[in-house]
């Protein structure tokens, strides 16, 4: 048997089920690897004691014959999910020292399925970023490097820590949240699978909010099947989240294991051929189309005419919601408080010291676009654009079953690049944002390496609440692409 840390979620489950390894042994192996790769700065908090405690409980359950879907599987949890008794920071100074007394619905579902918490992963502050460089706790290092280079690369963001720990085999799976691409883009940068479910599929209760109408929790893993296993456990209607869909959870795992792709219509949106996309990514995309065709699917050209308005509209809607969502970090009840001579000064001191530059920028943009006299020109207009984007997808899905696009316009970039101009950074999410604006599920599957040996991802976008078709297509793409590369040294 290969090293426990090399095993997938499915393989680990099988190993533990056949008593080849205990959950405690699995936890210990991954804890050792976590300690070995601290240099990645991927965890804000490691929780080895909690992990061992949960692993022992898992072994006891298994001994009683009560094993859940993810029994004994160690996971990294993005530090945006509130975890009872474990500090939760959202990557921000403003929440330092905050220890929730409650457990997010999604993580509670995972623990109910038997999973084991390894630690809280690093992220862009309040999930605002595409590089993980905005974290108060420092950037995360991507385990991948350009061939022959030693420059540190970013893992993408905002769920960069969660992507890096899966790529570095510190854990077989992790959770992320995706607002405009924060699961899919880091998955592409780190050569793993990342899925953003349909808005409403996973509960947002207990997840620190960035932009409520866009935020959606989802899983990372190294295979489509593992991704489906995690999603299976995370999903479900939650009466505590009014935007959670009151729908039964389909059998995602079966869909991922038995890809039925024959005759599936794969939409290729012509508007995604944009300047600035790396030629290698365009080539990979074309290769992806060919692979899907060879696997029995039928590619069709479709049009999403409002695509180019998605990014600007997103950068109105998301900051608007964030400016309001982050108002609660005021120094009054929890987290950081920097005193002042009066209430207003205390607010200014606390929020000035507590929030980083990117978060402050978005709060200011959001406050501006909601202001009297600007609301109609910006926020209302952006919501109208959003409705048009959603309509584009609805019309495209009359002609196809899933869409195939690149995940990101480039491979992982170097830490510190794109930091001067926020718009350049924002452009990294140009392929992922449209589906976010429409609330649709999207998955990034590693499909090849660029000339520097860095992984590249392709994105599949599905109909709302049709993750089963999406996972089936993703599994077929995964099989055809046969991506087996590993970051050197990991």
């Amino acid at each position, binding site marked *: 048997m290969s090293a426990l840390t090399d095993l997938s979620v499915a393989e680990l489950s099988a190993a533990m089920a056949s008593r080849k390894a205990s959950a405690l042994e699995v936890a210990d192996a991954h804890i050792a690897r976590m300690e070995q790769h601290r240099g990645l700065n991927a965890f804000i908090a490691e929780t080895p004691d909690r992990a061992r405690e949960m692993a022992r409980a898992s072994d006891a359950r298994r001994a009683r014959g009560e094993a859940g879907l993810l029994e004994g599987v160690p996971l990294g949890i993005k530090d945006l*999910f*509130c975890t009872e008794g474990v500090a*939760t920071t*959202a990557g921000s100074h403003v*929440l330092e020292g*905050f220890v*929730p*007394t*409650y457990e*997010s619905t999604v993580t509670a579902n995972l623990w109910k399925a038997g999973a084991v918490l390894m630690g809280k992963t690093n992220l862009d502050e309040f999930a605002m970023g595409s590089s993980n460089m905005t974290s108060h706790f420092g950037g995360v290092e991507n385990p991948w490097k350009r061939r022959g280079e030693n420059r540190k690369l970013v893992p993408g963001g905002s769920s960069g820590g969660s992507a890096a720990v899966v790529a570095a085999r510190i854990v077989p799976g992790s959770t992320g949240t995706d607002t405009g691409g924060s699961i899919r883009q880091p998955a592409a940068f780190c050569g793993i699978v990342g899925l953003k479910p349909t808005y409403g599929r996973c509960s*947002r*209760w*207990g*997840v*620190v*909010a960035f*932009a*409520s*109408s866009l935020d959606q929790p989802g899983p990372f893993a190294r295979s489509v099947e593992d991704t489906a296993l995690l999603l299976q456990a995370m999903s479900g209607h939650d*009466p*505590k*989240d*009014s*935007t959670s869909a009151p729908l039964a959870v389909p059998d995602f795992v079966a869909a991922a294991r038995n890809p039925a792709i024959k005759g599936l219509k794969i939409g290729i949106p012509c508007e995604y051929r944009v300047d600035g996309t790396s030629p290698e990514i365009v080539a990979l995309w074309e290769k992806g189309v060919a692979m899907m065709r060879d696997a029995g699917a039928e590619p069709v050209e479709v049009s999403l005419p409002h695509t180019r308005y998605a990014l600007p509209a997103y950068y109105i809607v998301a900051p*608007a*919601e964030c*400016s*309001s969502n*982050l*108002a*609660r970090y*005021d120094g*009054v*009840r*929890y987290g950081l408080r920097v005193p002042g001579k009066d*209430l207003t000064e205390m*607010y200014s001191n606390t929020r000035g010291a507590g929030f980083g530059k990117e978060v402050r920028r978005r709060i200011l943009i959001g*406050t501006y676009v*909601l*202001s*009297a006299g600007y*609301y109609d020109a910006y*926020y209302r207009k952006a919501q109208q654009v959003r409705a048009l984007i959603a309509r584009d997808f609805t019309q495209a899905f009359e002609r196809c079953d899933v869409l195939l696009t690149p995940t990101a316009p480039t491979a992982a970039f170097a830490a510190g690049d794109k930091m001067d101009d926020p718009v350049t950074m924002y452009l990294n999410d140009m392929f992922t944002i449209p589906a976010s604006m429409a609330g649709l599920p999207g998955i990034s599957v590693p499909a090849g390496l660029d000339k520097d040996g860095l992984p590249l991802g392709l994105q599949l976008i599905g109909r709302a609440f049709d993750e089963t078709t999406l996972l089936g297509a993703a599994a077929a793409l995964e099989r055809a692409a046969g991506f087996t590369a590993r970051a050197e040294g990991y």
Partner: protein
Amino acid sequence: MAMIKGETGDWEIVLGLEVHAQVVSEAKLFSGAATAFGADPNTQVSLVDAAMPGMLPVINARCVEQAVRTGLGLNAKINLRSVFDRKNYFYADLPQGYQISQYKDPIVGEGEVEIDLPDGSIGRVGIERLHLEQDAGKSLHDQHPTQTYVDLNRSGVALMEIVSKPDMRSPDEAAAYLAKLRSIMRYLGTCDGNMDEGSMRCDVNVSVRRPGAQLGTRCEIKNVNSIRFVRQAIEVEARRQVEIIEGGGKIDQETRLFDPARGETRSLRSKEDAHDYRYFPDPDLLPLILTPEYVAKIRAGLPELPDARKARYVERFGLSPYDAGVLVAEKDTAEFFEAVANGRDAKQAANWVMGDLFAMLNRRGVGIAQSPIAATALGKLLDLIADGTISGRIAKDLFVAMEETGKDPAALVEERGLKQVTDTGAIEATIKAVIDANPGQVAAYKAKPTLFGWFVGQVMKSTGGKANPKVVNDLLRKALDA
């Protein structure tokens, strides 16, 4: 219409009211925390109310139902689609940094209520809208020399903001409107209307103009907490505005506070300082969609409201509109009255309730719910009069005895020997004695029959008031006219 007499002529007051009515419900608008008044600080606070990270609001169906009930009670249009918005501002007792309210699409649209004016006439006040919103917490500035404490018990409690049209023209009309609103909501059980506990609060918009002229600039007086203060605040504010205009000045649109101790209003903030609340639809909540069936079901379950009850009292019981209006104003009073009137002479019941009972309650300074004489006991007293057991005069004494002892009227009659004498033999003997003792009066009666009343009085006096007046009348007439 009440005018203000200024130096330069008459001024008309124009008034619009915004009433914040706390919804009667077990739990808050978007959380399961309790809402009882007077609990220890910060003991009725959920994670949602304290705006902990990642917490989400979930609408309380009971509060929605109460808002719809109230809307129907105000004869208003129920909007089947309404939207919750965020009203953003920073304050220490506003944990989320925004209040969830309804801005563009409220749950209830236009309606109208009838108001009963002191002169017995009926006025009409238009309702602009009713919307649901969260209450804020409470800042306690007097607990520490330099710091402010915050109590979040009220944070997230459901309020209905009821906005009137600028249809009122006098303090009387504003007071009548508030009283009517409170009466309707108490009938509906949607707000307890206790202004002293803050479960009903009122902002008053006041402007003045020459009669018939365009609307003047208004000032909003915030958080007036009794009907009496509403009257006073309007009077002083209207007078202040007239003085400014007549002095050549102009009114600044601003928010003011009423100080009852000093009898004045003070500027709180000007229009320039007004917050930009950056309203936008709350992305944590879906639009609230109601079905016509849902509304119809609530409508079918509405109780009889004060106006309908008043009409019934006039029609069925033959009460005057004024008496009927007094009796229906408070649900408790109306129910008390109906318990007394049930199966009895309703007019007599009304006279007893509005006469002896109200006087007694006033004297004791208690409400009808705390009446020492229960409705059933008062009903029994009326029965004793009706069946001739006691006379009307004795009934008054019996009422006092009931108030003092709390005993059953029949038992008191027995115990104190108050039973009316209807034994004709005994009464005849008394009459004979009176006639024999007053030959002069008998002679005078022949010339002036109105002296009959004097004889009745003498007989009643001799029997200690217990003789049945009707029997006395009959027998006395026979004896005198014989």
